[in-house]
């Protein structure tokens, strides 16, 4: 199973304190994309030169990436709770989630 090696903030033109780059120990494959599909809304563009996916987790985190890359990009919404990235890591590494409800991934207050 894929392991997450590091998660780093992405510096960008904007104040991107909500954007992270997730680096894995192996390239993103179809199996990982299928795991995303089971656990949220997935858009998968297989016909692109390098297939591209976009996974939305309870509308508080968008993960996007390309088949074959070791990195993917996660964009958190301001309302995301701190546990959301842990959920994404668990999904990547273990292929399953806690089964949290939407309200559980929202920041309180």
């Amino acid at each position, binding site marked *: 199973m894929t392991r997450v090696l590091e998660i780093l903030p992405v510096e960008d033109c904007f104040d991107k304190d909500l954007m992270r780059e997730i680096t894995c120990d192996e390239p993103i494959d179809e199996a990982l994309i299928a795991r995303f599909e089971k656990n949220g809304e997935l858009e998968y563009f297989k016909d692109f*030169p390098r297939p591209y996916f976009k996974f939305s987790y309870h509308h508080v985190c968008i993960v996007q990436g390309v088949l074959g890359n070791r990195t993917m990009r996660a964009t958190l919404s301001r309302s995301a709770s701190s546990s959301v990235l842990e959920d994404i890591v668990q999904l990547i590494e273990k292929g399953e989630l806690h089964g949290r409800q939407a309200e559980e991934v929202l920041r309180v207050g």
Partner: protein
Amino acid sequence: MDRSHFNYLNNAATSYPKPKRVLEAVQRSLQEPPSEPGRSRQNQDPTLPCRERLAKLFHVPAPNQVILTPSATVALNLVIAGCLHEHPKGNCLSTRLEHNSVIRPLEHGRKRFGTQTIYLDPDQDGRIASSSLLRYLDKETRLVVCTQASNVTGCIQPVEEMAEITAEYGVPFLIDASQSAGCVELKYNELPGQVYVAFAGHKGLFGPMGTGGLILPDNSLEPILTGGTGIQSESLLQPASLPIRYEAGTPNLPGIAGLAAGAEFVLERGIESLGMHRDSLVRSLREKLTRNPRIHLSPLADSDGRAGVVSFRAEGWSTEELGFILGESFGIETRHGLHCAPLIHKTIGTEPQGNIRASVSAFNTEDDILKLADALERLVKP
């Protein structure tokens, strides 16, 4: 992903590839025993070829009017801080097209010297009407600053007309040629009044990153950086002579050697010819993108594409996502976001996300344009 196979369309940030002679010049500079201007036993000042070629490119009367700096940002700061330091308060005139390398020094000038800046809006074509200066110029105006070409839209500004006006009012005029140097002709010797020109070395002049410069009329500005110059060391104050008055510290000789080679390349090819090449690619891309009603191009006065920039947004995609897909999936390197020019996006309707910018250089071909147009056709269904 192996970036060497990218279709590189981010030349407005940094030109790539560089002419072979630039690589060779940098390598040669590093391989030879160091010789520094004023500090070595060699008679030849190693920075002189660079100054001479830049002076020729910009039609500057004397090479010592070309100051070599680590970036256009340093050059812009030198003029803005120098002008405001000597005459605090009052006002500056600039435009909403400017890069943060102009806006931030002006806004810090507001804090430090109490100088207010008025930012002029471009017209619908993306151009500043030179006559709009007349509305705000007065005896309290300390400086006028305008880009020669917007780094967001590529739109070329009438800086020659502006210089006529600022000269009439006796106000110094700072032209930011970061995006236009090597792309658009600027005849410094024909500009009246006290004109300064800041330029980047790593874009249209094909030099390495970390190079740039300033063209100035005289030594009247207060230097913002002082230090060793290798000559007149007995003086405890910065020497008055040009160019060392504004060049404290050990120069970036490998970078300067590369910039000299880049300037030589531009002189040989000719600014007009290089500009025509960029213009033809820009017109081709704009013509293709205009066919798609869901792609919205930024304004470009007279469709003049000599600066080599096409910027746009596409319905149905955030600029961040579209830029990511173009790069990672299609292998086309563009730039997305605000491009460090936050004020213009409100004017052209691309706030808050900014836009996608594709920018071409001497080494791009119609094939690069076709690849981007094809990718956008697939991504943005009309």
